[in-house]
């Protein structure tokens, strides 16, 4: 009988923290600056320099640890991981091996087969390495990224498929974004993942694992997992043994290749970092950090569905990014109309964001102005078209909604006599359309509404006009009928 195989996956995720400065020096961490303009004697590893730890890095780690239900260490410290490479100016990376800040957590993910809990082995703090540019047989060294704070989040080998791994990563990304501790831009390297994978017969002992690196998108991760699963099963089915090794993913080729095997695995000679003192986290400090935790996405979703009677689909869109949910909550509260606020964001605002390429984290729109517009449209003071146009003006130019509406005469005409006169005039000059309507072509009413609207430069209430049009057509029908009988 053919063996049934099971894939066992663990992920090591590196998240660059969005602190203002580096982990051990006061250099800024802005992405994309000219080479070596965000480095100093400390992060470029000059002799005699010393690290001083950025308090906020510990606090971000504590936030993530709390969100992932970890045990937060009451004391932790740094170790040096020794290896030499041009992107590591001190030839050691300050990291945490012997006493990491967070251990033993879990993350509930929405896996294909339902909710699944993925274990978190540990989270530790460390410094990022620099950037190397390879060109013409030379390697150019840029230390701007050296010392950017990282959290390494090591999962337990609890995932069984590419889908589960991606679901875990999506949930982890959502968590990091909600905590506002990482911008999670994989294309800029601020979120990176390595895959540890092994194959075993279902229920059997763990197999020999490989580690795959250089995965720059969720798609690449899924493909690499599928590739590695197939590769290892093929080896095992041919009676072979998987080599413990580190592999590098080539996304263009859609395959990975061996970087180094266990035999030449590096001996990192970890030891306690003597230039830094331990960190003690007392209950008061932890409590202060706990108070800063936001309501997480899954809780928000449940609340939107339960309390605001939004649909699950709408709730999911509105909680997709914490900035959007904050924006929604503010607008819902100010306008007093959560449904209308939700519709505006999911519809027009999303359209405008897509059109302009503005990302949720950069969204800056005056919710007072939008509240004004919601009040106007729901009070039948402006029509939907005017609402849409005014929203765009607020979004793009921060226009004042009232001025915008007044200048364009978009305030709906509420003088019934004027509307009735206009309706009569349109009916009188369009007998063919009236006849068509009477003959059952009811859609022609739209044309008639448009004709009336023209007379008010678009500021009429289409509902009211429609109502009056139908009323008058029916009245004249009745009169004609009377005449016919007389």
């Amino acid at each position: 009988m053919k063996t049934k195989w099971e894939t066992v996956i663990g992920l090591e995720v590196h998240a660059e923290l969005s602190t203002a400065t580096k982990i051990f020096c006061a250099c800024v961490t802005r992405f994309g600056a000219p080479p070596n303009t965000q480095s100093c004697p400390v992060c470029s590893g000059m002799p005699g320099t010393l690290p001083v730890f950025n308090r906020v890095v510990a606090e971000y780690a504590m936030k993530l640890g709390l969100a992932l239900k970890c045990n937060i260490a009451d004391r932790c410290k740094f170790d040096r991981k020794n290896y030499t490479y041009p992107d590591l100016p001190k030839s050691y990376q300050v990291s945490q091996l012997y006493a990491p800040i967070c251990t033993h957590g879990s993350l509930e993910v929405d896996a294909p087969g339902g909710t699944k809990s993925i274990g978190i082995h540990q989270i530790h703090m460390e410094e990022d390495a620099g950037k190397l540019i390879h060109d013409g047989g030379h390697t150019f060294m840029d230390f701007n990224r050296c010392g950017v704070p990282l959290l390494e989040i090591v999962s337990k080998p609890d995932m069984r498929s590419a889908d589960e791994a991606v679901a875990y990563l999506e949930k982890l990304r959502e968590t990091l974004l909600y905590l506002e501790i990482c911008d999670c831009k994989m294309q800029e390297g601020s979120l990176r993942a390595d895959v540890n994978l092994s194959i075993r017969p279902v229920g059997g002992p763990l197999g020999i694992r490989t580690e795959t690196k250089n995965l720059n998108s969720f798609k690449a991760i899924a493909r690499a997992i599928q590739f590695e699963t197939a590769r290892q099963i093929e080896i095992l089915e041919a009676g072979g043994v998987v080599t413990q090794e580190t592999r590098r993913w080539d996304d263009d080729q859609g395959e990975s290749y061996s970087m180094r095997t266990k035999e030449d695995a590096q001996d990192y000679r970890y030891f306690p970092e003597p230039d830094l003192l331990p960190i003690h986290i007392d209950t008061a400090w932890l409590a202060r950090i706990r108070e800063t935790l936001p309501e997480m996405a899954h809780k928000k979703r449940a609340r939107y569905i339960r309390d605001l009677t939004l649909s699950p689909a709408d709730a999911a869109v509105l909680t997709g990014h914490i900035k959007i949910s904050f924006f929604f909550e503010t607008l819902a509260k100010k306008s007093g109309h959560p449904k209308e606020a939700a519709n505006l964001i999911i519809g027009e605002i999303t359209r405008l964001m897509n059109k302009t390429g503005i990302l949720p984290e950069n969204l800056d729109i005056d919710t007072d102005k939008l509240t004004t517009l919601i009040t106007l449209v729901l009070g039948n003071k402006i029509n939907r078209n005017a609402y849409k146009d005014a929203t765009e003006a607020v979004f793009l130019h921060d226009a004042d909604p009232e001025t915008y509406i007044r200048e364009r005469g978009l305030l709906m005409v509420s003088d019934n006599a004027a509307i009735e006169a206009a309706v009569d005039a349109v009916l009188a000059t369009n007998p063919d359309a009236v006849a068509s309507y009477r003959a059952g072509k009811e859609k022609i009413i739209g044309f008639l509404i448009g004709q009336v609207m023209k007379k008010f430069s678009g500021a009429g209430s289409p509902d009211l006009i429609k109502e009056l049009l139908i009323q008058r057509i029916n009245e004249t029908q009745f009169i004609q009928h009377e005449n016919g009988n007389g």
Partner: protein
Amino acid sequence: MGALELSAQIQAGKIGAVETVAKYIRIAKNSRLNTFLAIPEERVLARAKEVQDKIDAGITLSPLAGVPVAVKDNISTEGTETTCASRMLEGYVPVFNATVIDKLEQAGMVVIGKVNMDEFAMGGSSETGYFGAVRNPWDATRVAGGSSGGSAAAVAAMEAPMALGSDTGGSIRQPCAFCGVTGIKPTYGSVSRYGLIAYASSMDQIGVIGTDINDCAALLEIISGPDTRDSTCVTDAPFAFGKENAAKIKIGLPRNYFNDSIDPEIIRAIFMAVKVFEDAGAVVEEFQMPLVDYIVPAYYALSSAEASSNLARFDGLKYGHRATEAKSLSDVYTLSRSQGFGMEVKRRIILGSFVLSSGYYDAYYRKALEIRGMIKEAYNQLFARYDVILAPVAPTTAYKLGENITDPMKMYMADVYTASVNLAGLPAVALPCGFDAQGLPIGMQLIGDAFSEPLLVAAARKYQACTDYHTRKPGVPNL
């Protein structure tokens, strides 16, 4: 004339700061001892002029204003070559000052030059440097001690009134003993290490060397104090030493230090010092120093481990020596390092890599950390009983150049009296306490509990008030 007195005369307008500095530069440049590695003469004179201008303007600087100071070449000086006496850093010019240098300058002192040492402060004789050995002012065929040999020899030979050194396992105290000058190895964390090119970070400490304890104390006041750039510099404030004497202190004397592995003349000198203290009112009690056989192994396991990591950054890419013939990256690494480092440094890097490597960490490195914990605890108990421990600095006086350089074990074992102080992070003062039959200086050390420098300074002051060993000078031209 001591440094305090020199500054007083400069500040009183009796001597000029520029002429003082010029005189020391002249002497230093004519040194036969290979003490100075760099004397940036123009800058130094310009700096002395600045100080003189401030003094003339009536600005109060410090009790050592105008005093020239020699700085060990592992302390970074912006714009002046800082080599650690290594080919690896030949031509390296720091782009920032060590914190202590900034402090010296704020105090109106003038750094006159960089002084020789053992390469990367690894050694006890100042013979391991790339630029040649430092010679002992009392006998130029002998070593000056190390690793701060240039600092101690410069002060002893009056090439500089004061010097900064660094002490990781005895590197201030032992050359002070060999050269007959006074030095303080301060409590770990009382002086910033920022800008000190690291050998063993958990033990390195910058300290001071001078002709007597008052000069040393004044300089330590200037360089000590907190620093936001060094997390391990945990002191709240600079030292402020009073003028009091410490008469009725309780001194512990480690009986088992005085055995057949130490020169009997040193034992004799130390017991004479005991008598001096007793006569001054101190109570001296003998005790058995525990763990003595474990001090040197633990010290070398830990210091070499840290050194192997600290020196890994010298890779030929960012600063320092790069092998010109290297083509590949791995050649740049191995050739630059193999050419740039001397034998003693390589030995310790290899040893450090070994004790940290997979499979050996627990038996060597972790074990050494545990022994370090025991040593610290032993000192805690001793300082519950004694104010000060009086001990020898080295088992011998200055030996002949080349005599021990090929026997690293013998060199390492000579650190037995000094290294435990660094393992425990304690302060110690080295004082001249006699001369052997060949006329070579003998030193002793007073070890105190962490941050007990005021007591150590007071005890040393008491001793020097009763003796004149520190006033004797080697046979070189007097100022």
